Structures are given as structure tokens and as C-alpha cells.
């Protein structure tokens, strides 16, 4: 029976190529937009190179200090000392790494200038993240204790600085702001969309200009807490919070008196949305309202369009319906047939969308808009798109099918 329905659907599709084109255009386009969007979101918040352990990591990104009247507040990353005292000392996590956010700098080779992003990290950074070392190895506790002037660079920076060479550059010198560092490792870079790991050059925090000695609570450092397994996340958050609660309040920093101090350790997604929506519940509602509206338009407009087309086209097939009804086909069977037909065409559209998405993703990955972009159609994205496909097929199939089932036999046969 199903095969028969599909055969009929195929014949109907071929009869009017123009309408088939309109329908497929609408479906595949909408699905493409949705899939590229999901794939981009997955790129932003999913666990990917080099933050493959993101699902069992907690991120500490900023400290919020507010005065008693709540009229002024100060917000930003923390000092190395603060994080050493309150985060590095945690017992529950497997490992804790402290690193700076992105700092920028320049390097000069001959008459060429290279824009650089640098990051100061501790030795644990290389254990918490999963960087792939193309050459050499990371710096360790020993290098840090010695205060060695060493650096880990990315392959991209290596090509710019040393020219496109296949030779090993381990042990060579890079000069950045008048200081010479010895290269001890070359890694495959991280995309700019992952600010906790993205940089061109990584230094141990004991090299000059890292400001790790700074006293006080605020500075340029953030932390990643790696749990032994996912179920420990809650315990780590609680332990960290208990450390924070020990800080005496109100306090004073550089003349700024604060009575509220907030530092959160959040999973990546919450951390990410938290900074995006730092404007109270009002802004959050607006933000989600706007996203919801856009999604509704994105899905709704093509769906309404499809329903419209289907409703008009069903009338073309009035005689076929009339004959089937006259021979005793129940309304349920007819409705079922039309739904199957719609789902069938939606899946064809879905297949086209997959190909289109694949092409667009390749385009984004290769264009260099985002360095090291690694957008993929993975299992999650694919399943979500399939579900969307189904909803779409039902949405545009049910209404016309109902409309059709009300058709009077005599009237249908007359046409």
C-alpha cells in the first residue's frame, strides 16, 4: 500500500514540474537554513577540537562586583592570584587550568607585520584541552618553575613567521615585542569562536608581561575546571561556591567599594548565554522573543506557502478522489495517502537540503571567514533536521488532506 502511495506521489510530481519545483524549493531552502544554523550553533557550543572535554568542564569567566546601592558595577576576568586561591585549590575536579583570555600583540618579520593573539597558560592547560601537537611538546611544570622563555605556536603562525617550511622549527627563536622565546611545540590551531583556547602563541604564565603577580581580585585570567565525570559537575559547583562564600564582604578594590561579589562556574552553554544576556530577565525575554519570531517566520512562511499550494492543487485531483470515494475508500485512507505523499516529497526536499548544507558548510570552512572552522553535519544535526522534515511534512499535509476529505463525491466526479 505504502509503495503504491509513493508511486502515485512520484507520478503526480512529474506531471507538473513547475509546482514540484516550487514545493521542493521551499522545503529544501528552509531545511538548509535550519541545518546551517544548527550546525553553526553546534560549532559554537558543542564539544569540538581542542575542547573535546567540554561536556564535563565548567568555565569561570567573569567576576561581578556591585556596590550596595546597585548603581555601579564592575565586571571582568579575575587575577591569577584569586583563581589560584579559590579555584585551583578545589578538591573535586580532576584538573583545573588557569589561562588568560585573548591578548593581542604584533610580530614583525622583515617588512611584514603579523597580527598576533597570545595567551598565557599554566601547564595543566595542555591536559584539560586536547591540542594536537604537530611538532614538539607542550611546556611542563618544570619550564614554568624555571621561568623559561618558551612558546607553543600554531601551524598558521609558523607558516607566517618562518615561511612555508616543512622543516621542524622546534628550538628556533620567535621575537615578540623585543623578547625572544624558544619554540617548543607546534599545534593545530583552535578556531576564533572558542575564546578559551584560541590563540596564535601560547606562553607559560611565568614569562614577562603576563601580570600573574598582580594582587587584588581582578585581572586577565579565566579558569576551566575539568570534572572526572559528568555527574561530578554539581559537586564542583557547590565546592567552588562554598569557596566564594568565604570571601569577606563588603570589600574594597582600588577605591571601588562593593557589597556583592558574584563568580559563577558554569557549563559552557550557560556561560555563553550568560554573557550574551547580561541584562536581566527583560532583555532575556526580548532575546528569546526575537529568536522565536525569526524561527517561526523561517518555518512558518514556507509552511503556509506549501499549504496554500497543496490546497489549490488538491482540487486538480478531484476526479481521482471522487472515483476512489465512489469505490468506497474511507476518508481515513485518503487522508493517510495525502500525508504519506507529503512526507515523501518533504524527504526528497530534505535530501536536497542535505546536499546544499554540505556545500555551504564546505564553503564556510574553506573561505577563511573563521580560521580553523570545522562546521560539520553530525548525527545530532542530521536527526534534528529529519525531525524538522517530518513536522514540515505533517504541517503542510494535514490541512489540505482534511479539506479534500470533505469533498462531495458527486461534485468531485463532475469535475
Amino acid at each position, binding site marked *: 500500500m505504502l509503495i503504491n502511495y509513493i508511486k502515485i506521489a512520484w507520478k503526480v510530481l512529474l506531471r507538473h514540474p513547475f509546482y514540484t519545483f516550487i514545493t521542493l524549493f521551499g522545503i529544501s531552502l528552509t531545511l538548509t537554513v535550519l541545518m546551517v544554523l544548527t550546525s553553526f550553533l553546534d560549532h559554537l557550543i558543542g564539544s569540538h577540537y581542542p575542547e573535546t572535554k567540554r561536556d564535563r568542564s565548567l568555565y569561570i569567566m567573569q567576576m561581578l562586583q556591585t556596590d550596595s546601592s546597585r548603581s555601579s558595577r564592575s565586571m571582568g576576568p579575575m587575577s591569577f592570584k584569586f583563581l589560584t586561591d579559590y579555584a585551583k585549590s578545589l578538591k573535586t575536579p580532576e584538573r583545573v587550568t588557569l589561562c588568560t583570555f585573548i591578548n593581542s600583540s604584533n610580530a614583525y618579520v622583515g617588512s611584514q607585520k603579523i597580527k598576533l593573539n597570545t595567551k598565557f597558560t599554566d601547564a595543566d592547560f595542555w591536559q584539560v584541552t586536547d591540542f594536537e601537537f604537530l611538532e614538539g611538546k607542550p611546556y611542563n611544570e618544570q619550564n614554568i618553575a624555571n621561568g623559561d622563555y618558551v612558546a607553543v605556536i600554531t601551524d598558521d603562525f609558523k607558516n607566517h613567521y618562518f615561511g612555508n617550511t616543512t622543516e621542524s622549527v622546534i628550538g628556533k627563536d620567535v621575537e615578540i615585542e623585543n623578547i625572544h622565546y624558544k619554540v617548543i611545540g607546534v599545534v593545530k590551531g583552535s578556531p576564533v569562536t572558542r575564546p578559551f583556547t584560541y590563540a596564535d602563541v601560547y606562553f607559560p604564565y611565568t614569562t614577562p608581561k603576563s601580570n600573574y603577580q598582580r594582587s587584588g581580585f581582578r585581572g586577565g585570567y579565566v579558569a576551566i575546571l575539568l570534572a572526572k565525570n559528568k555527574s561530578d559537575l554539581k559537586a564542583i559547583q557547590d565546592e567552588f561556591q562554598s569557596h566564594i562564600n568565604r570571601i569577606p564582604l563588603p570589600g574594597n578594590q582600588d577605591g571601588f567599594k562593593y557589597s556583592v561579589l558574584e563568580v559563577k562556574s558554569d557549563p559552557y552553554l550557560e556561560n555563553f548565554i550568560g554573557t550574551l544576556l547580561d541584562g536581566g530577565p527583560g532583555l532575556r525575554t526580548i532575546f528569546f522573543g526575537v529568536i522565536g519570531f525569526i524561527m517561526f517566520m523561517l518555518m512558518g512562511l514556507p509552511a503556509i506557502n506549501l499549504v496554500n499550494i497543496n490546497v*489549490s492543487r488538491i482540487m486538480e485531483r478531484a476526479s481521482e478522489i471522487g472515483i476512489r470515494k465512489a469505490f468506497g475508500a474511507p476518508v481515513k485512507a485518503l487522508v493517510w495517502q495525502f500525508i504519506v505523499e507529503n512526507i515523501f516529497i518533504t524527504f526528497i526536499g530534505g535530501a536536497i537540503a542535505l546536499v546544499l548544507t554540505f556545500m555551504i558548510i564546505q564553503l564556510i570552512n574553506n573561505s577563511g571567514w573563521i580560521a580553523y572552522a570545522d562546521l560539520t553535519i553530525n548525527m545530532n544535526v542530521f536527526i534534528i533536521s529529519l525531525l524538522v522534515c517530518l513536522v514540515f511534512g505533517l504541517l503542510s499535509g494535514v490541512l489540505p488532506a482534511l479539506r479534500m476529505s470533505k469533498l462531495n463525491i458527486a461534485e468531485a466526479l463532475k469535475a
Partner: protein
Amino acid sequence: MIRHLFKLIWNKKKTHALLMIEIWASFMVLFGLASLIVYNVGNYTKPLGFEYKNVWAISLKSNQDTTNVEQKIQRALQQLKTYADVESATRMSSNFPFSANSMNNGVEYNKKKIMADFYVTDDNFAKTLDIPMAAGKWYRNADSIGKYTPVIINQKAKEGLFGDENPMGKIIGERFKVVGTVNTFKAKGEFMADKPAVFELLNAKSPWNDLLLIRVKPGTDAVFEAKIVKNITSMLTGWSVEVDHLADSRKNQHNLTLVPVIIFLIVCSFLLINVALGLFGILNLSIAKRRSEIGLRRALGATEKGISTQFIGEIWVLATFGMLIGLLFAAQFPLLNVFDLHANVYITAIVVSIIVIYLIVTLCALFPSRQAATIQPAVALHEE
């Protein structure tokens, strides 16, 4: 004729409900896109107010060094001025043009209060960025005598605080004395809204404000840049130095505005193409269904033109119904001043969207109605 068309559509409102919803939704999408574009184009047409080419921003960071920071910054500035390639050098707060930083404060005059962007600059700022004065003169270090700090305000700040009054010599915010005005100053690039700005004279003895701007001779390259970075870092041990070219920073600022607009534009145009194709298909089918009606009208003496006008008129009435619903929503934006935009932006956007929708539906109806008009009455009636 029009009243008749309205009646025709109203009688079939159930069958046309979905079409109207479709037009309503397209109108809303178009309205959003048009508001965004109208707003940005409106900003773009206002002059930037300064010249950014060949200007470099040099950020100094003292890191662990805390002794005599202000003297060291002044020394670096003096050093920069000695180079033959540097035409002019100035020291300012970290919110240099096209940077990601911003600083704003409320200022008050005669109970009128505005939020203004604050820029702390020295006497060479106007020369380095080539800012033309509208009135008065750019302040000099000598102007800081007395309890008031001299400030320059831009046109927008002048309108907000003084209206038609002459601002020269007035005291604002209790400690600033206005000594001059400039026209516009859009520090975040062409797409930034023209906002009130206040330039405050920098105190050379304060340890903050460690950003230096220099205007170099055209054609100066990275070799010279490497040289100044080397000189400054060897002069100030332990300090970090970073050089940004304003022309590059401007590109970044532009991308922040342009990329979302372009993505929105692409998605919207695909949605609208989709809707247009759908409309075209539906009209084609419904006209094919009404062959007998058309044949009858033709037989009774209706002209070809009359037939095609009828169909285009019908779709226009449909579009009008859809857009009336859309207007109910869109009108809230200028009325409630959503997102603090000027009402004109929304009104222009509404007008633009209405025109585009009429254009789309007309284009979609044109071909099917032509086809309908050529139907031979004899053939159509015979089929019946």
C-alpha cells in the same frame, strides 16, 4: 469597481485566509529587514567627522611597572614626535576611534540631561585626526587653569543641552567649560548613530589614558612600525606595545554591522522568492479554475484589459487586507519607540515594505492574468 472587488474577496475570506496570512508574514519580515537597512543607511549618510587614513593607535600597557607611569607615557609621546615620518601625535583615553571600548557619562545643563560618549584627549587630537571645528578652538594645555576643565562638544550634544543657545563658555556638569564645538564625531565608524560626544582635556599628570595616536606620512610601512615598537619597548622595560591601524579597525567595526545585515538579507530574499513563487503558482491554478467565469464575462463584452485588471485588482485587495493586519503590529514600533529608534526609521520602513509587497504581488499576478485575458469565450463556455 473597488468596492465590488472588496466584496468579492470578503465573501471568499475563508479560502483566502491563508493567502492573507502569507502576505502578512512576508510584510512583517520585510518590515524588519527594511527597518534595519533604513537605520543603517540613515547613519551612513552622516559624515564621520574625522580622517582615519594613515592614523595608527599605539596602546601601551605598563604591566607590573607602577613607578612614574605618567612620565614614561609622556616620554614615549615626545619620542614619537621626533620621528620624521610622524606628522602628529596625541595621547588619549583607551576608547580611540573604531576601538571596542567605550566610555559614557551623563552631563547636565539647566536640568537638561544627556548621556554622552566621553573622550579624554590632549591638545593635538584635532590636528592628528583632522577634525574641523564648527565654532571656537580646540583646547590647549594652558586652558586648564582654574577649577574648570575645558571641553569640546559635538553638534548632537549641543542640541541636547543647549538647543538654540550659544554654548561657548557655558559650564556643564559642574566642572566642564565648553570652549568649542565640532559637527559630528562617529567614533565607531560610518554605521554608528550620531550620538552626543564630549572631549575633555587630558591631565598630563594622570597615570591612565595610555593610548597614543599618531598620523604618519602616507606610504609608511611595517618596517617603521617595527622600529617604533622596538624603540618604545627598549625605552620602557616590561611594557607591552600594540599597534593598530585605524583603517583596519574600521573594517572590523563595519563587519560587526554588515555581517548580520547581509545574513538577514540573504535569508529574507530567499523567503520572499519562495513566497513569490508560491503566489504565482496559486494564482495560476485559481485562474485556471475560473475559466468559465472568465468566458462568461468575455462573452458579455468585457475587454482583455478589463479581465487582467480584475485579477490584479483582486490580488491587490488581498494584499491590502494582509498588510492592514501587518500595520497593526508594525505601527506599535514607532508609537512605543521600540529600541529607541527615531519614528521616521519605522515609518520609512513601513512605506518601503508596502511598496515592495505591492510590487511582488503585481509581478506574480501579471502573467496568470494575461493568460486569463486571452481565453476565448467560445472555448471556455464550450468546456462548461
